[in-house]
């Protein structure tokens, strides 16, 4: 058996056999082409027949006109002439015959993106402290940042649809599932209008609408994770957008969404936000964020307004600028109707080589600045003290604190520069800064559960410098090495190194700008 096989492979590799196979291939190809040409000739005959009849029916042209082109070019080898047969009339739009955009074969494009990180840090409070983002690396060792299933396609002639289901593990190994997005969007409203409904990211700034695997860095910018919350702003709701009839790109977005839950941390989310402070620790504002007063009016929902405009500076350079605002109630304190206002400015600039190959080389610059006004409701810790729970107390007298209402301001920005210096390689540099104006509530000498309390660390100044290097072996995989130098006021400095690896299966990921 082995001998025969060896002999066969021996002959199979011989030059005679190769020549024979090549001849056979050529012969088959020739036959195939002849059949094809025959069919094309038939199609062409039908076409000219049709044209002649059409011309005849039109009566304007004499009968000879139709025969003209076919006969006139007679000396050329009419070896083939094809046409997309006779196209049937455009199908009437029907909601029972679903159709799809782009690729054929299935009604829905299915893709899966898995993002994993490995690394270490000098900090002891990695999850939620050092790394405030909900999908940041969360411990020394390995992190499942997210395994995201994406389904997208056309629902019917009127709507496109998209769903992102995200699985991850927290630092303790607990599985988490998130309905990241699931929405439908109109395809053909007039006057540049578009409506989106379902669960979706609020149109605030630039990074908020992007999934973690689309970011240029391993982790979320500090200002985004702190001011918008670990998971960003996303909730069930509806959005209207209007592309204005200007010569440049100019679009207005208005979204109204629920104001509670993980997807609305600065609003009615309560103190138990994913990746947030540890249980038993002092919440932001030194008061529980549990004053969820429900929804009784339109302004109890989260409203987001965004205006974006973009223009091409040159053939190779594009600029996109956006202004955003998010407004809604918050759940701080126990009295009044405190509200949160967040304002943002975002800027994106990109240059791409006129000879870009697979998108390289390129240089991009992205920056976002945010300002948040947070109304803290009045809160009295007496009740907690009476129930034997940990409470905030005056350091001198030991009596439970009664915090009056006040408004605090947080702000910050990040800038990031990405340089795709050769095909598949990107070097990145990011600078993060976030701070908060000192609130009156931070001034008193307090103790909490017996321990002295300093400034509110969830609003304290910190900054971070992050260089990284990313390698894309192909469009569908990614390896990223990142170093973070953190400096937190009242905490100190920390060093972290993270290695990220990503896989992408299934449908081609949509390119975004």
């Amino acid at each position, binding site marked *: 058996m082995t001998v025969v096989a060896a002999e066969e492979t021996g002959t199979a590799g011989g030059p005679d056999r190769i020549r024979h196979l090549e001849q056979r291939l050529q012969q088959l190809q020739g036959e195939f082409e002849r059949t094809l040409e025959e069919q094309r000739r038939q199609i062409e005959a039908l076409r000219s027949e049709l044209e002649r009849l059409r011309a005849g029916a039109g009566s304007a042209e004499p009968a000879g006109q139709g025969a003209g082109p076919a006969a006139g070019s007679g000396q050329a080898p009419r070896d083939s002439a*094809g046409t997309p047969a006779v196209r049937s009339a455009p199908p009437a*739009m029907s909601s029972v015959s679903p159709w799809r955009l782009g*690729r054929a074969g299935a009604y829905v494009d299915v893709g899966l993106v898995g993002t994993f990180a490995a690394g270490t840090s000098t900090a002891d409070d990695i999850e939620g402290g050092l790394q405030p983002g909900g999908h940041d690396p969360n411990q020394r060792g390995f992190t499942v940042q997210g395994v995201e299933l994406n389904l997208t396609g056309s629902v019917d002639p009127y709507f496109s649809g998209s769903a992102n289901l995200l699985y991850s593990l927290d630092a303790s190994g607990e599985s988490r599932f998130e309905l990241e997005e699931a929405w439908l969007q109109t*395809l*053909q409203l007039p006057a540049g209008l578009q409506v989106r409904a379902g669960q979706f990211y609020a149109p605030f700034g630039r990074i908020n609408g992007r999934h973690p695997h689309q970011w240029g860095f391993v982790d979320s910018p500090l200002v985004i994770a702190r001011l918008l919350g670990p998971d960003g702003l996303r909730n069930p709701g509806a959005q209207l957008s209007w592309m204005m009839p200007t010569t440049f790109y100019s679009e207005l977005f208005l979204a109204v969404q629920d104001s509670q839950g993980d997807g609305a941390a600065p609003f009615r989310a309560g103190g138990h936000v994913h990746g947030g402070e540890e249980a038993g620790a002092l919440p932001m504002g030194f008061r529980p964020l549990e004053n969820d007063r429900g929804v009784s009016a339109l302004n109890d929902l989260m409203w987001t307004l965004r205006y974006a405009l973009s223009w091409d500076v040159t053939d190779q350079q594009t600029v996109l600028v956006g202004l955003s605002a998010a407004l809604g109630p918050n759940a701080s304190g126990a009295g009044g109707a405190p509200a949160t206002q967040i304002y943002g400015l975002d800027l994106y600039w990109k240059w791409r080589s006129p*000879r*870009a190959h697979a998108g390289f080389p390129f240089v991009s610059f992205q920056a976002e600045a945010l300002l948040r006004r947070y109304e803290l409701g009045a809160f009295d810790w007496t009740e907690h003290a009476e129930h034997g729970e940990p409470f905030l107390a005056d350091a001198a007298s030991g009596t439970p604190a009664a915090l009056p209402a006040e408004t605090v301001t947080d702000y910050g920005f990040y800038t990031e520069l990405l340089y795709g210096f050769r*095909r598949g390689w990107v070097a990145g540099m990011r600078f993060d800064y976030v701070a908060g104006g000192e609130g009156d509530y931070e001034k008193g000498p307090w103790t909490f559960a017996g321990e002295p309390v300093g400034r509110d660390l969830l609003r304290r100044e910190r900054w971070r410098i992050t260089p990284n290097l990313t390698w894309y072996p192909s469009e569908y995989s990614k390896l990223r090495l990142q170093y973070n130098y953190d400096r937190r006021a009242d905490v100190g400095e920390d060093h972290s190194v993270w290695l990220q690896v990503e896989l992408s299966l299934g449908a081609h990921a*949509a390119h975004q700008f």
Partner: protein
Amino acid sequence: MRWRTGFLGGLVAALCLVAGTTEARLRVVATTADLGSLVRSVGGDRVDVLTLARPTEDPHFVDPRPSYLVRLSRADALVHGGAGLEAAWLTPLLQRAGNARILPAARGNVRCCEGVTLLEVPERLDRAQGDVHPQGNPHYLMDPENARVVVHHLADTFAELDPDGAEVYRRNARAFLTELDRRLPGWLERLRPYAGTRLAAYHNSWPYFARRFGLRIDLFLEPKPGIPPSAAHLAQVIAEMKADRVRAILVEPYQDRRVAERVAAETGAKVVLVTQYPGGVKDTGDSYLELMDYLVRSVAEALAAGPEPTPQP
């Protein structure tokens, strides 16, 4: 009161006039420059063409700039290859542009690959084979016979969208085809002496060209479509090129010319700068026929140039 109605009437009339003049021309967006050129040939003065991808850049990866959304939202027709080349960036643009006239299945959405027999349709999809297009190799316009199919298709579509211009579109299409028929024998003649000759290319963009002109372009610097060349693969390519005395390496403007130069230096072959898009390299003008002229000429010159290469040590 009367002056006011008069003023309003005038305004409405002026607006109609403005609308009328802008309506007169068909607004067409073409994804790539080869399609843009065919649209110009068929549409002539009756269409305004805007091309999205630059002729020098990789059409697989085009930034979906917001300005493209604006163009698409106002287009009467979208002319695209339809064979997956532009899918990654065109699909999201179409979904956001919200223009019923150019959505798939609308008359203004022209999938140019319809009626073209696509080569290299994969039997099974496996990304271990690189970035293979599920519908087949999308570089079909490198066979001028396929341009014939596309031109018919464009004329039909434009005639339907703009019935007043139907005769013009048909006449332009016939003029193009007559010119194509005039040049084709010359192209075939020019490359006939090299029938069966083997060429190398950076990327597998040339199966249609090779088939039409009887060449064999089946050695690629990329180990697999979309995968950058590796040293081991290049060594293999160099060995095969030496064994088969391959004399030319086809490289497109956006591909890494240095890799090709390195291989050329080792094998004595010549690097031939080619493009699939009018305007992609100098002397390709902005017309499809000029581009084919250039391609045939530069390949023929490369194959004719000098004696048989002798493999260098």
